[in-house]
């Protein structure tokens, strides 16, 4: 029988919201034989699980397809107090001032990618933009364009990111650099400015070594930002709201929030149950694995009226960035990037139509199964004589 939960299938990714409708309405939470997890789809349940990390632990990973080597070693795959230790080291890298610096730096790079074109492969533009953002968040004392290109290559071909078309070269290079900067002691190169490297060497009194604090943004950070930019571009057009936002750019923040609720690029997280608990018609036992579907929770009609409509006035991201202890550290920068991106796109490219038909959308087959990105989103300037 076909598994009704299958984030490694293009057909499933194209049709997932219809499938979630069925799963939410069932008497019992769905058991995925393929992934050996219960799929938690209702808003109330997802919020409860995210609010109770003592019952729904991240210590045995947060990815749908996990690697035990990550347990307790990353922000996402750890519970407190480890999680907070990591978070406190890098928290300042996501400050308001640093976000402003990053946006200013990346703006010219974004404009150079889109200027002079009537047709854009937005998947490529989003990939490159996200990689520039992450390279700036890391702010390593090494050539930033090299780091950016390694992030793009790792996103497309690294085995930590995708499970097709693998080429180890980019991820190998990226990890070699990050291994050095995260392991070395002594007369380390001075930080070029605010960012994760700066915090790692100046705000890390116990000298905690965690390459994941650098690698995480390159992998899950860049992919969720890429997906976020793509879905914003796609859904505004698909839901016939582009013209309205173009005419009144004060609506951009609302468009960003609703886009995140409507189509969260990081759609799902794993948790492991630590205490017996009843949820959605089943009794979960210690050791059971669950997938908390943020994307399904965000379409739950018990929480959101008319959830399958993109309504600008709704103005909430729902649980797109998680909730509670594990709420995404990059929430503010992600929203700022999406706001800035949409404004720059509308001001400098103008109204557009999406050339890729819905049935032809190709999703990136991510290794983790958590994040959704599109590999072939193409847009054309309205009125362009192509």
């Amino acid at each position: 029988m076909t598994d009704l939960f299958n984030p490694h299938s293009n057909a499933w990714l194209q049709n997932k919201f219809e499938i979630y409708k069925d799963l939410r309405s069932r008497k019992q939470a769905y058991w995925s034989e393929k992934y050996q997890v219960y799929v938690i789809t209702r808003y109330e349940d997802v919020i409860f699980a995210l609010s109770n990390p003592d019952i729904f632990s991240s210590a045995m990973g947060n990815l749908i397809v996990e690697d035990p080597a990550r347990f307790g070693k990353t922000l996402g795959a750890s519970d407190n107090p480890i999680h907070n230790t990591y978070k406190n080291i890098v928290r300042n890298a996501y400050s308001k001032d640093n976000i402003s610096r990053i946006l200013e730096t990346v703006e010219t790079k974004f404009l150079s990618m889109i200027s002079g074109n009537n047709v854009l492969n937005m998947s490529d533009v989003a990939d490159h933009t996200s990689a520039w953002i992450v390279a700036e968040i890391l702010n390593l004392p090494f050539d930033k364009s090299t780091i950016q290109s390694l992030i793009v290559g790792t996103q497309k071909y690294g085995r930590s990111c995708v499970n097709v078309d693998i080429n180890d070269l980019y991820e190998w290079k990226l990890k070699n650099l990050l291994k050095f900067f995260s392991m070395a002691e002594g007369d380390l190169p001075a930080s070029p400015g605010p960012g994760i490297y700066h915090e790692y060497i100046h705000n890390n009194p116990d000298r905690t070594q965690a390459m994941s604090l650098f690698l995480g943004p390159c992998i899950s950070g860049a992919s969720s930002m890429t997906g976020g930019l793509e879905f914003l571009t796609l859904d505004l057009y698909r839901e016939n709201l582009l013209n309205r936002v173009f005419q009144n750019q004060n609506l951009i923040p609302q468009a960003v929030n609703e886009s995140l609720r409507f189509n969260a690029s990081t759609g799902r997280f794993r948790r492991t149950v630590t205490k017996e608990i009843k949820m959605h018609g089943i009794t979960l036992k210690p050791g059971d694995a669950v997938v908390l579907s943020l994307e399904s929770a965000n379409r739950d009609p018990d929480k959101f009226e008319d959830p399958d409509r993109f309504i600008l006035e709704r103005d909430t991201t729902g649980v797109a960035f998680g909730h509670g202890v594990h709420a995404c550290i990059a929430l503010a920068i992600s929203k700022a990037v999406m706001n800035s991106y949409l404004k720059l796109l509308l001001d400098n490219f103008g109204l557009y139509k999406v050339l890729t038909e819905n049935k032809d959308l190709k999703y990136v087959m991510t290794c983790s199964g958590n994040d959704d990105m599109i590999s072939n989103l193409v847009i054309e300037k309205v009125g362009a004589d192509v």
Partner: protein
Amino acid sequence: MIKISRIQTRPNVSVPFFRAEQPKEKSMNLKEKYIKPGALVKIENLMSTDELQFESIFYWRSIEDYCNYLIDEDCHEVKADTSDLEKIKELNLTIKLIVKVIND
């Protein structure tokens, strides 16, 4: 100039130190691309008297030269993961990387 020390410590002398195996061709490339132009100035290996600590010291012209070498596939075997670190863990070795700036 910078000095990068890689210090391995083992629990007893029966545990072998980790040694990255590189094909001859990669070592030749290292010589041509980094040693001859003066980017990698010299390499020293030191064993402690109790033989529990092994230090490989690399003198590089600059951090940038060293980082360029780290991502140069002509001089390394490209591996799928950070398996060196895994091997080191398996062998129960501890490893430290210490950077020291040396005034020329």
